[in-house]
């Protein structure tokens, strides 16, 4: 495309970013991989020995691993379901003509900008608290026994909190896609005798497919590493009822100082995330060509 001179300049301009990211990727990744084959505990410095797949065996056969894996999938799946369905609904609502659309839009997207620790604590204390929380007050007002949400339904409660934060993201993306739908296409379908329902399923939904895929994949990447919400609400409990994979690794690492098995867990988490990442990257890559 261009002259030799500009191409050489281009290489120099790209170099810092590429080199930095390369180091950022290779060094910690290599270390994680290396640690995962060592018996290495920070409480017993100098006692590192090579254990082969010992850490993996320890981590993967720990019953807590399966609970955490299940919790991770439930958290991701539940949040996805809530945000994609809710987001589609909200996007369609916000696409209708009504008074104060701009303001309602702002209200709807606001939760996305609330930092995880704040949203978790606000929900935990002021809404879900079994004695003084707003939900308890409403329940009592309606004649029900208040629920201790985070103690009896910890994973569900965390899903609600996380979904509240991610709903705006899904809504915003689906709304953007919705508004890029060609009016003439809809009008052509109307002329062809399609009603609102068949327009939704035959025109709107296929048009949204791409946005919905993007939402699903990107949210999955982020939701696989939900951490702060668990840390400040349940601490993974009761027991390990709301421990997900990142939290389990965090416990191994910074509470039990077991670098070896935390690293093995880290490798497992990386593999899990990569399964999703492959699809996401492929999709974005296709877009890049267009």
């Amino acid at each position: 495309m261009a002259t030799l001179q500009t191409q050489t300049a281009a290489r120099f301009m790209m170099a810092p970013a590429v080199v930095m990211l390369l180091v950022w990727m290779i060094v910690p990744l290599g270390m994680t991989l290396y640690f995962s084959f060592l018996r290495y505990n920070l409480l017993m410095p100098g006692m590192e020995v090579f254990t082969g797949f010992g850490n993996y065996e320890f981590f993967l056969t720990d019953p807590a691993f399966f609970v955490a894996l299940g919790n991770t999938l439930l958290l991701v799946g539940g949040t996805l379901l809530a945000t994609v369905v809710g987001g589609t609904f909200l996007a369609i609502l916000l696409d209708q003509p009504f008074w104060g659309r701009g303001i309602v839009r702002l209200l709807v997207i606001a939760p996305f900008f609330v930092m995880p620790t704040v949203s978790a604590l606000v929900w935990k204390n002021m809404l879900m608290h079994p004695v003084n929380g707003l939900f308890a007050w409403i329940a009592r007002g309606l004649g029900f026994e208040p629920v201790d949400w985070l103690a009896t339904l910890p994973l569900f409660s965390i899903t609600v909190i996380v979904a509240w934060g991610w709903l705006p993201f899904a809504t915003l993306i689906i709304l953007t896609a919705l508004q890029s739908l060609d009016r003439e296409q809809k009008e052509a379908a109307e002329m062809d005798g399609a009603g609102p329902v068949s327009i939704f399923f035959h025109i709107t939904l296929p048009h949204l497919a791409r946005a919905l895929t993007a939402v699903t994949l990107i949210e999955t990447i982020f939701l696989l590493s939900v951490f702060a919400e668990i840390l400040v609400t349940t601490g993974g409990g009761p027991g390990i009822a709301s421990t997900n994979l990142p939290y389990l690794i965090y416990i191994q690492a910074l509470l039990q100082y077991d670098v070896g098995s935390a690293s093995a867990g880290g490798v497992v988490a990386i593999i899990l995330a990569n399964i999703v990442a492959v699809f996401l990257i492929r999709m974005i890559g296709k877009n890049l060509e267009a």
Partner: protein
Amino acid sequence: MAREATRNRKIAFTAFAWLVGLTLFFPILWTILTSFKTEGEAIATPPSLLFFEWSLENYFEVQRRSNYLRHAMNSVVISLGSTGLGLLVAIPAAWAMAFSPGKHTKDILMWMLSTKMLPAVGVLMPIYLICQSLGLLDSRIALVAVLMMMNLPIIVWMLYTYFKEIPGEILEAARMDGASLGKEIVYVLTPMAVPGIASTLLLNIILAWNEAFWTLNLTSSQAAPLTAFIASYSSPEGLFWAKLSAASTLAIAPILVMGWFSQKQLVRGLTFGAVK
């Protein structure tokens, strides 16, 4: 007839949409309201919505008891620092990829993206140990560096999609007009790229401000930004809801305003240009 039906429909949608919008916004509204109550009123049953004695006491109290401003300053330094440094590295890279693409540009972009997919927890241990051995635990420097690297792929990608929209012919015109590379960047590229750079800046400040994995794991007190500071309210003895609300309101208010301004760019940034 038809006009009336449209009108009724609009009224119904207005009522419903506002109901939904206010419901979703309620936790934030509730936090803001509670921050002006006394601790007693904050946990009162039945809760008082608007009719209580408004007071700013909590805001002063938060600062007195825990030096709120230091943590706020940490948040500012970390989010601005990491984003600023990230832009410094990313602008030339994105410029090169957008205007002088080579055979491998696309692969490099995809690879950069893939580093973003790396779960943080996977590299928790090495980063923690590196910071420890460098004496950088609980330091702003470590967080600036880590968050910069975390967001660098997003920054490069966002800038790349914005730069891509600047027609190459304009830069060629500048070249024909006698502009050197430096002048081309100063007079032509930068003014045209400023809106894109600004929204990249905005979105990444938001992301860094709200980041709550590294900030929680790499800081304890000195360098703790607001995310970590607020997390300290989770301990049972810290159940001061009114103060929690005051601290939270201060922590989310600036970002909420920025977020509202950047809602369009948000979609583009977080989907890596897949949805515009």
